[in-house]
């Protein structure tokens, strides 16, 4: 009996549903010394912008119960340096490359999408409308329906590559935002990004994070993420990529059953560089034990 792990996100065929989450996997090469990147379903590289970004002032991270807060501030080397310095290496691998991207304003989003669309070796675009650590007028793009609608529409118009929109959990009803993405032609939505959070040092009465607040990730947010993926999967027809605190295959399977077509490993990469591949192995084992021949039979199989 064979057990197929292949899933389809728009025109993107993934050998398995396990992706690395943006911002947690560097530009891929950092992890290539630990794992065979060919075995991942896809790799999402760190969020890129038109120009290099220095990111936020330290301290940038703090560990919390079963999670961590980060405020990196989208530090990145910029799209041009990425294409010259990092992409040639990534192209050597037989996996799909997803580039997470953002801009300071909508024009920059559009320009980024144009560049990414024209670059060989980039298989899909993930539009970051939800980073909690970036302040700009377009910061609210992921939080306000009208802004999101306009942004997705304009970015969609300039790329034929699969367009994924990464959603913020910081909204009243995430299904509304997902539907907007679907209506404006996005190929998929990914969720959830981190949850805005803070920790106070009671002696200094200051925040432990340089920018006062940061984004909470890790297993602490997983049940919230599962619930949102469940809701969104029922609300839209486009594929949902689920993420938020996945550490083990059991965690990943919850998301798949809730309706996620694929899942992403984020903070767990920091716990163990092998986390992504361990999840792939664990899912394989589960399919074998449960005698499921095609993972697509498991996806969205939640029983009410």
């Amino acid at each position, binding site marked *: 009996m064979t057990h197929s792990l292949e899933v389809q996100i728009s025109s993107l065929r993934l050998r398995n549903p396990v992706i690395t989450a943006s911002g*947690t996997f*560097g530009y891929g090469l950092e992890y290539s010394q630990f794992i065979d990147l060919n075995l991942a379903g896809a790799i999402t590289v760190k969020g890129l912008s038109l120009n290099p970004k220095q990111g936020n002032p330290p*301290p*940038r991270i703090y560990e919390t119960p079963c999670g961590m807060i980060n405020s990196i501030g989208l530090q990145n080397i910029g799209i041009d340096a990425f294409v010259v310095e990092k992409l040639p290496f990534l192209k050597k691998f037989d996996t799909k490359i997803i580039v997470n991207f953002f801009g300071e304003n909508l024009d920059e989003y559009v320009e980024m999408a144009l560049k990414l669309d024209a670059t060989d070796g980039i298989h899909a675009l993930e539009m970051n409308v939800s980073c909690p650590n970036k302040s700009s007028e377009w910061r609210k793009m992921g939080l306000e329906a009208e802004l999101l609608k306009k942004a997705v529409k304009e970015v969609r118009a300039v790329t034929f590559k699969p367009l994924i929109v990464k959603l913020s959990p910081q909204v009243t009803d995430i299904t509304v935002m997902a539907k907007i993405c679907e209506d404006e032609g996005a190929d998929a939505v990914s969720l959830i990004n981190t949850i805005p959070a803070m920790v106070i040092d009671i002696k200094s009465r200051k925040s432990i994070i340089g920018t006062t607040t940061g984004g909470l990730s890790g297993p602490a947010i997983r049940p919230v993420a599962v619930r949102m993926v469940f809701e969104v999967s029922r609300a839209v027809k486009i594929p949902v990529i689920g993420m938020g605190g996945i550490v083990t295959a059991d965690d990943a399977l919850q998301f798949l059953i809730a309706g996620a077509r694929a899942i992403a490993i984020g903070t767990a990469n*920091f716990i*163990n*560089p092998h986390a992504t591949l361990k999840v792939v192995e664990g899912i394989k084992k589960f399919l074998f034990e449960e005698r499921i021949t095609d993972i697509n039979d498991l996806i969205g199989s939640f029983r009410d």
Partner: protein
Amino acid sequence: MNKVTQAKIVDNKSLTDDIFLISLEIPEPIEAKPGQFCILRMNERLDPLLGRPFSIFDYEGNIINFLYRVKGKGTEILSKMDKDQNVLLTGPLGRWYPYPEKDFVVIAGGIGLASVYYLIKKFKNRAYFFCGVRSEKEILFYNEIKTFAKEVYISTESGTTGYRGVVTDLFKEKGLMLNLPVYACGPMVMLKELKRIVQGSSIPCYVAVEERMACGIGACLGCAIETREGLKRVCTDGPIFELKELML
């Protein structure tokens, strides 16, 4: 692709009230250099979530040692682990101390010894070692260091042993005129004072820096520190930096 490995605890003992030495047996030899570090993850539990970075204190054959002070949740758990238990070891990671060409000065403040012991041991009979501790009972591995180092100078805050005062003052008195490269690890206030002392001289200073860390391999950008050339990652651009590069 073998940087992550299960390591078995062969010993884990307290040397003072809060300083411990843990010895781990690893299945295959690694190439560990002085100044590098490893990340230890104590168990599969999710709280604390992240592993903890520790300087490589000593390494020989298949045994790797870490000297650590119990400070928080992670080190507390580590200090209670027993012989034959396993920890997940990732490493060696980071840049090492540039190898000294001739004699050199080493300055360790408190638990900073954890980063420099292996350097002194590797380059036998070449280090002028300046060791600053709070009290006499924190003078660790004195006999061993005595055999590896060229000279040993001790300072204690109480003055019960050696020089009375801070180690940077002792260095200023006895070490500065040697005009040798300096390798140092210790609290931020010590590094700041050292920077002040060597300012204007041409003495190269290499220091080990600490920062909260998540991935340890340069991916998360969490351990950023300010340098003259902008933000750098302690895990992969460091943990060894030239002192003059740091904005202290």
